[in-house]
């Protein structure tokens, strides 16, 4: 009976895929939803590709899965992946059924699946990945992700010992996941060690997960990412099998040591988060058997998806667009830090991180602003900040509490008018930090900047 339901679900979902494609629509979610409505354990009946790699964690899973897919594809692999789709149960079902035959058998030999960490318990009982990459676990959306204990509990509960883990060895929460999985590899970063005295704004792990005693840190790069050890027991950050030992920002290279050798790869973006992401990719591809040359071939032809990071010039103006996921305080803080660290002066920032849907007949939960490090805006290189969107007053109050000088701040509730407030003769280095769902606004700004820049030629 279950099998019959599966075949009905498969048929209906494939029909839905066909119809959606005929209409020129994406078939990256709805067919999966149809399949799961008819057959709850649909995923469990699919014949999966020979190798299934899942990527999960708080930040960077899209970048890692896109890079893996891109490099594998450039090396001749035919990969099932959900780069353009959803990373929850229905999205995973949709992409797997698209790449399966009429009996539900996978047509491709390898799958790279980005998995929403909260959906692990709905997905992994059916899809037991051969490999699971976890970039990091840190606080995220208040509403959806709660706290890191919860996410760790979900991921750990969802896995069986069959899965081989590729974990961030510089994240003690991630490296402590799923102790039942004995086959574990760690990646990490040794280059550009920060000063020991650098104190991060937030830490999601303060006490030993084994004995509860205080943790000490050799150093922390951001949040709790760094090297830690317990003051009372043997617990410490694990040794790393894949270790970034050098970053050449000028020439865009990074060096990874593994298996007793050093290898250099093209660095697609020098944000430290993306160095971790790139190292995870090197580790995974090496485990799959790709040579350093094959991996570099892929890296040298890859770049971060334009919607996440992009630059444009307009006359004298140089504008950088950086996606900063709203409701995600650590990701936003990393973006703030990245912009502040760029060695330029007199920067102007437009901060447009309010969630559109949470402000349409809604009033957005602003708790996350208080987990973001707004003190970064006090950096001397940042001359002006325009907070735009319906929550601009909340951004102002948050910034003042963080010690930012009010003189630096301009409020502009109407995002469409933010660019018009810029004096192009005074500010030429402009940074737009925008939420995932504000891409349309960012696109409008591009047009407005083009016009604004024309007068500065």
């Amino acid at each position, binding site marked *: 009976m279950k099998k019959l339901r599966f075949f009905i679900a498969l048929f209906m979902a494939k029909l839905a895929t066909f119809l959606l494609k005929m209409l020129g629509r994406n078939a990256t979610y709805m067919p999966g939803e149809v399949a799961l409505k008819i057959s709850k354990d649909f995923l469990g009946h699919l014949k999966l590709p020979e190798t299934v790699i899942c990527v999960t964690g708080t930040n960077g899973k899209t970048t890692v899965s896109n890079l893996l897919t891109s490099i594998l594809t450039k090396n001749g692999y035919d990969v099932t992946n959900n780069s353009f789709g959803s990373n929850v149960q229905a999205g995973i079902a949709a992409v797997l059924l698209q790449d399966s035959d009429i009996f539900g058998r996978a047509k491709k030999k390898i799958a790279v699946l980005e998995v929403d960490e909260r959906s692990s318990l709905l997905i992994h009982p059916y899809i037991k990945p051969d490999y699971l990459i976890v970039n990091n676990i840190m606080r995220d959306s208040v509403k959806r992700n*709660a*706290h890191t*204990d*919860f996410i760790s509990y979900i991921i750990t509960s969802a896995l069986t010992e069959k899965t081989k883990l590729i974990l961030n060895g510089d994240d003690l929460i991630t490296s402590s996941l799923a102790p039942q999985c004995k086959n574990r590899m760690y990646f990490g970063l040794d280059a550009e060690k920060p000063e020991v005295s650098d104190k991060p704004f937030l830490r999601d792990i*303060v006490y030993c997960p084994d004995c509860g005693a205080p943790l000490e840190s050799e150093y922390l790069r951001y949040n709790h990412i760094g090297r830690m050890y317990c003051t009372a027991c043997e617990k410490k950050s694990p040794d790393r099998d894949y270790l970034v030992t050098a970053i050449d920002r000028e020439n865009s290279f990074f060096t990874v040591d593994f298996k007793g050798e050093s290898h250099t790869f093209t660095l697609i973006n020098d944000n430290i988060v993306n160095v971790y992401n790139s190292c995870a990719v090197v580790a995974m591809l090496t485990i799959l058997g790709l040579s350093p040359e094959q991996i570099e071939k892929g890296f040298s032809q890859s770049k971060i998806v334009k919607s996440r990071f992009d630059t444009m010039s307009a006359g004298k103006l140089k504008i950088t667009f950086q996606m900063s996921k709203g409701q995600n305080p650590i990701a936003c803080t990393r973006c703030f830090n990245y912009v502040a660290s760029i060695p330029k002066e007199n920067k102007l920032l437009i901060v447009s991180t309010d969630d559109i849907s949470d402000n349409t007949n809604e009033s957005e939960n602003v708790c996350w602003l*208080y987990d973001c490090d707004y003190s970064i805006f006090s950096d001397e290189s940042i001359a002006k900040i325009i907070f735009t969107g319906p929550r601009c007053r909340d951004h102002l109050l948050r910034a003042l*509490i963080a010690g930012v000088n009010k003189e630096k701040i301009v409020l502009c509730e109407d995002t469409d008018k933010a660019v018009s407030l810029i004096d192009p003769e005074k500010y030429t280095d402009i940074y737009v930090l925008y939420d995932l769902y504000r891409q349309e606004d960012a696109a409008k700004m591009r047009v407005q900047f083009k016009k604004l820049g024309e007068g500065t030629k």
Partner: protein
Amino acid sequence: MTVEILFSEIAGLYGDAQNAKYLELCLPDAEFIYTDICSEPYFVNNTPDIIYIGTMSEETQRRVIEKFRPFKDRINELIDGGTVIFATGNAPEIFCEKIDYITEKKEITGLCVFPLTVKNDLFKRYNGKVLGTSGDIKVVGFRSQFSFIYGDNSSYAFLQMQRGVGINKESKFEGMRKNNLFCTSCLGPFLPLNPLFTEYLISLTGTSAEAAFREEAMDAYKKRLSEFEDPKVKF
């Protein structure tokens, strides 16, 4: 004036930790004592003017209860003596009789200040907003939680709700109050979001202080209040 901030390194999730920072800005001359979970609370041998504790994970909540248990009588003494104690998010649950962790299959006895029980289910997250009154002050807030409190708090609620749910989905009474112990399930930057309540809370210590960045805080508060009072805005 002395303000004790309890366990902010682990009981300050979702921006709750910034309530302490905001109090510091409101009370620049006060002494702030940050007590970590491994240290003995300052209140055990002293009487702070204000004590604050914020939101934490379930595991931390169990650890905090065990930390407090030996000082249960002292905590009751402080409450009866009128010390201002403010608890946000899931910290109020500590003062209930029992917490049932349904998903984790655990149960723990609380400090029994209120004859209420708690049910926590990690697979049921509730997100909501709060519009209520505490005396003549209108209060706004946000909630995100795995647990609800059960029992009759109608005679000692913190807030009479205008919109949003109370201690559970059937209740119209949010939080608890006993003398100057204020308990609310609202989380995050409750004090910066409610400058009028902040001023009231401080006034209970016998000191008068203006909320920090009052003008900007009131602007943000009024904007949120108008949105929360708008029937088109979903709760």
